[in-house]
């Protein structure tokens, strides 16, 4: 027989509608930032793929693009949890829920940092490749 379960930890989403403009603007701004980040990733990757297909894999611009993608991934890994935490603190400062003690939690993941590390490694490889390519092109 199993003992009575006890809730040790839990997380949930609090959803509500608001007419408060600052809250609506803040959530829209978050969505906009996400769209901009995705658009930036797509554009950087598109440039890398285009140059590879043109037969210029070790173009210095590819190394720069991969480095920027890595920085973006690291930024998302830091920025998103921080923004969610700050937003939650702000909202919970305004919204009172009867009978439940709510506290914002700072939750992060290692995944964006691992992705950033991988991209920086690739950027270093492509940077070295670009140096070798420059030397090769000036080898007569």
């Amino acid at each position, binding site marked *: 027989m199993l003992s009575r379960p006890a809730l040790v930890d839990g997380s949930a989403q609090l959803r509500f509608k608001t007419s408060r403009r600052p809250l609506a603007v803040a959530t829209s701004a978050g969505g906009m930032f996400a769209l901009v980040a995705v658009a930036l990733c797509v554009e950087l990757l598109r440039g890398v793929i285009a140059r590879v297909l043109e037969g210029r894999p070790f173009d210095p611009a590819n190394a720069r693009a991969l480095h920027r993608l890595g920085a973006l991934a690291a930024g998302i890994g830091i920025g998103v949890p921080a923004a969610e935490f700050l937003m939650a603190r702000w909202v919970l400062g305004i919204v009172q829920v009867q009978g439940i003690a709510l506290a914002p939690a700072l939750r992060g993941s290692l995944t964006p940092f691992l992705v950033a590390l991988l991209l920086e490694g690739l950027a270093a490889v492509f940077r070295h490749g670009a140096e070798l390519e*420059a*030397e090769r092109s*000036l*080898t*007569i």
Partner: protein
Amino acid sequence: MAIYTNLDVVLAQRRMSLTELSERVGITLANLSILKTNKAKAVRFSTLEALCRELGCQPGDLLEYRPE
């Protein structure tokens, strides 16, 4: 880079143009120009061989070391 080429000197001595040399050795005019203006980072032995053959000279006639 402390290694300089004297390709222009040897070409003048042989009264040959860069274009003619390019056709003879099978290297593009652009690459020969890079070599002539000392912008090259490295020279293949096969290139040196072709240049010496067509210009009738030694590698030492084409290359010079000037300590910086």
